[in-house]
């Protein structure tokens, strides 16, 4: 900011440009964050369901092979649900890490707010 050799109109222009750029950045970031939230919501649903589907699939398959219906289905249903939650946990963990990396300069409170 402290550039005394610049003439008055140029400094004015500089200030106005900086303000406009900051505003533009804010708008773009808000839109990007909305989009990211949207994609995150769909991702989490898909992760949860996919692991459950795999668990149930394995359970049904093993049951029909070994003739142990319905016990392995029950076991693998629970394992699949656990795997789904593990998936969701990993997504959130990764999300926090990338948010922290990309915008490390931002205050802690704001970062926690967008989780």
């Amino acid at each position, binding site marked *: 900011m402290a550039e005394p050799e610049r003439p008055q109109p140029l400094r004015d222009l500089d200030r106005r440009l900086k303000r406009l750029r900051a505003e533009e950045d804010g708008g773009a970031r808000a839109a990007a964050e909305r*989009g990211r939230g*949207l*994609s995150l919501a*769909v*991702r989490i649903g*898909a*992760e949860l*369901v*996919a*692991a459950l*589907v*795999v*668990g149930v699939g*394995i359970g049904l398959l093993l049951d029909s092979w070994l003739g142990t219906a319905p016990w392995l289905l029950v076991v*693998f249903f629970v*394992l*699949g649900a*656990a*795997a*789904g939650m*593990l*998936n969701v946990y990993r997504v959130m963990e*990764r999300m926090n890490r*990338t948010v922290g*990396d990309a915008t490390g300069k931002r205050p802690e409170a704001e970062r926690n707010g967008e989780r």
Partner: protein
Amino acid sequence: MASAEHHGPLSQFEIKTLLPIHLGEADISFTNSSLMMVIALIGITLFLLLGARRRALVPGRWQSMVELSYEFIVGLLRDTVGPDGRRYFPFVFTLFMFVLFGNMLGMIPYSFTFTSHIVVTFALAAVVFVGVTILGFVKHGVRFFAFFVPPGISVALWPLMIPIEIISYLSRPISLSVRLFANMLAGHTLLKVFAGFVPVLGAAGVVPLAFVAALSGLELLIAFLQAYVFAILTCLYINDALHLH
């Protein structure tokens, strides 16, 4: 065009055979889905080749877009995989552009969205899954199985955690394909349902029309976002295969 025949919100997803080809038992006919894929391929090729044709030092708009998409994927690989991720650029870039063009071409009225079919998205996801698994075995050999043993967990919990980890690993292609297909299917169905309200409501049809306009914008965003998610997850899986935990 639409008024004469029956046109439900789901008829946009119908597969129509354009050129019947039968190879023994298998039906490998050329359909409208195949046509859109060919159009996407031609579109990508033209977009990249014509955009990079002038090789100006100060790029024009078109060349900027080409450079932007290149740098986007390079940055993605650098951030998620690291410096040795550059080797996988052609694969990730091809996937990203194919999915992106598939999604974007589907936004053109009366066209067909091939990414709204689970066969297509699951085939793409299966390629990623099998490729990444092979990559892991090539890089680490038998030690790749250590990927299924979570670090810092007592041996007593291994019988519980290893099946969970394996299920979690097997669920990757399903979540990857379902996400893309479900987004495209739901978005396009919603658009058609709201568009169906417009002629029915007469003058009040302006309200759903405005909604359709807003939804189209949202769909454009989702079309890009899902291509991005597909690419970034591929990068993350490559990273997992290269560096294990």
